[in-house]
């Protein structure tokens, strides 16, 4: 992971002190709520249904054991003993008090963490492949670029008040685990000739009420030229993005209304006007960042793994992924126990996994956009010991990439924007589907549940998407099928009228059973959907 320096430490401490002053002025009545709201949002502090909510940034999803332990301490000291990991690889606390938030930010700053740019119309936390730097199939490690983007976008004076929020995702593998095509800008980093690094820039993806798949905007751009090019895109968006209607303010709408070629021409013109010498530092800075990534000391296994049992083998089959280093593995820790709350971890679990990471994974953890955690550097011979420790704290559910590995937003149980509940639906669905997935091969079938059209749970690009709405005062759930969030990203199609909350688990089970009945060998659910069409699935659900 990246080694932060004195500048980073100074920045988070200054920002914490600044927010303390803002809170003091608010409590003293020197600034109104209307004046304070944008300031608190810039520090990740929302006001939700029951309380304030603090969203803490986890840059590109990478955490140290020490940081995770601090997150657990904050959960106990200021909240209710748990945290919620999100699809932007961040963590949210649901019950902080305004009067204690400055102390929380101080505690975060003590481990180089913060809540800067986790809200507001700015460039948000950059996300990436949770297997970055360790995936066996990786072409280029995306973390140096992510860190470069973090430094470039943090407190960037030109981009603090964009027309709308702006999200980047980066992948360095042909298999996209970062969902780059449903972000405002998605970057694919790849190898060029003579050890150069090139980037493909995908622009205009997004979800919400107008879901769009990003378009290839610029191919094979040398990484040294990337920041001025991104700066050109951001300037054009900042200038022409709509500010009259927040539902039409994202760059996906600008791209749709302007057209790809015209927008490319505007960006090229802007790019040519930028003083390139101002970015001459990039090549050396990229190399410096890459050199500042703390690399684990990989060892040769001293003993062959001998201990095993059926439960461990099931977990290893489902939750352990191939590592680029021989003898090592990536262990994915599910935060989706059947009937549990997707993405939630208690302070006890957070401390336990921090300890496990310290002992078995070079003190490093990752947060995935599917709301799970990762131990990225585990010796294969240690996997059984790791699993035993995970079992003790109920973190050994063997369901990664299965339907019960559900993404769910907080929904109407917490969120002020939501129109329907998500978490209780996810709990019911995972309970019901878990029995089926234990006896039937359902690997790769994704279920995502959003509690409103903002689509925080990415339901549009789930194989099975669930969207909660309010229909005449009653919660109602639309079902979409055939979405994908990988390198072949596609938007799911609505298959019929919405169903009642209690009927969602049964409807999903019918979809899954129909898929199992008609699929061809190794055929994914969206591929089956594409082949047989909507009607047979509709018939299976609605009869």
């Amino acid at each position, binding site marked *: 992971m990246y080694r932060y320096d004195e500048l980073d430490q100074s920045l988070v401490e200054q920002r914490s002190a600044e927010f303390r002053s803002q809170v003091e002025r*608010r*409590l003293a*009545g020197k600034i109104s*709520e209307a004046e304070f709201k944008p300031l608190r949002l810039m520090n990740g502090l929302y*006001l*939700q*249904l*029951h*309380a*304030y909510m603090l969203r803490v940034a986890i840059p590109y999803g990478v955490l140290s054991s020490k940081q995770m332990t601090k997150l657990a301490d904050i959960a106990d000291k*200021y*909240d*209710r003993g*748990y945290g919620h990991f999100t699809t932007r690889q961040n963590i949210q606390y*649901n*019950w*902080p*008090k*305004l*009067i204690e938030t400055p102390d929380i930010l101080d505690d975060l700053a003590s481990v180089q963490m913060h809540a800067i740019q986790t809200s507001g119309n700015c460039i948000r936390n950059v996300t990436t492949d949770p297997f970055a730097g360790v995936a066996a199939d990786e072409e280029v490690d995306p973390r140096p670029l992510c860190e470069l983007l973090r430094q470039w976008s943090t407190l960037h004076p030109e981009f603090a008040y964009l027309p709308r929020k702006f999200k980047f995702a980066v992948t360095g593998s042909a298999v996209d685990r970062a969902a780059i095509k449903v972000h405002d800008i998605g970057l694919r980093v790849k190898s060029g000739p003579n050890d150069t690094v090139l980037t493909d820039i995908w622009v205009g993806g997004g979800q919400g009420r107008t879901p769009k798949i990003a378009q290839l905007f610029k191919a094979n751009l040398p990484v040294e030229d990337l920041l001025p090019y991104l700066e050109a895109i951001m300037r054009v968006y900042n200038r022409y993005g709509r500010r009259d209607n927040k539902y039409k303010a994202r760059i996906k709408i600008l791209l749709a209304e302007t057209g790809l070629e015209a927008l490319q021409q505007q960006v090229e013109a802007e790019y040519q006007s930028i003083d390139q010498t101002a970015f001459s530092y990039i090549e050396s800075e990229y190399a410096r960042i890459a050199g500042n990534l703390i690399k684990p000391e990989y060892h040769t296994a001293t003993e062959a793994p001998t201990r095993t049992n059926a439960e461990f083998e099931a977990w290893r089959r489902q939750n352990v992924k191939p590592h680029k280093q021989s003898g090592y593995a990536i262990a994915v820790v599910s935060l989706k126990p059947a*009937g549990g*709350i997707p993405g*939630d971890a208690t302070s006890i679990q957070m401390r336990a996994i921090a300890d496990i990471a310290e002992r078995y994974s070079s003190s490093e953890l990752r947060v995935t956009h599917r709301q799970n955690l990762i131990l990225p550097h585990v010796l294969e011979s240690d996997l059984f010991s790791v699993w035993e420790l995970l079992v003790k704290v109920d973190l050994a559910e063997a369901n990664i990439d299965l339907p019960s590995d559900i993404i769910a937003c907080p929904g*109407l*149980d*917490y969120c002020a924007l939501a129109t329907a*509940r998500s*978490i*209780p639906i996810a*709990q*019911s669905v995972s309970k019901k589907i878990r029995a089926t997935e234990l006896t039937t091969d359902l690997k790769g079938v994704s279920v995502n549940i959003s509690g409103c059209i903002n689509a925080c749970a990415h339901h549009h690009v789930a194989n099975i998407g669930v969207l909660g709405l*309010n229909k005449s*005062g*009653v*919660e109602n759930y639309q079902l979409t099928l055939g979405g994908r969030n990988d390198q072949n990203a596609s938007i799911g199609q609505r298959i019929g009228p919405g169903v009642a909350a209690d009927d969602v688990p049964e409807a999903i089970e019918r979809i899954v059973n129909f898929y199992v009945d008609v699929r061809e060998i190794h055929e994914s659910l969206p591929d089956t959907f594409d082949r047989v069409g909507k009607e047979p699935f509709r018939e299976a659900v609605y009869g």
Partner: protein
Amino acid sequence: MNEASTQAIIIANDLRTGRVVYFTKESGWSEAIDEAQRLTDESANERLAAATIDERNNLVIDPTLAQATVSADTDRFTLENIREQIRVSGPTILGSDHASTSQAA
């Protein structure tokens, strides 16, 4: 059977803690729903105006009226909007200790 009537309460968030609070008969704020003043259509807007003074005084955020149906037979008070029901009763998460708004932080 007598017909149900409509009443309202005023809900806001406490500025310092963010917790859900209710406007009381004494023109104060309480975290206990039982202490919320029940308002008729005639009195609702006048009391909302009084509650809004506390927003200007930096005590609460966004006081709003929440409509409820009251059973004439049982006096049972049911908020009409599911959002407000959850706001009052807390998260509905199954089998979890997250579900109480009154739980100590």
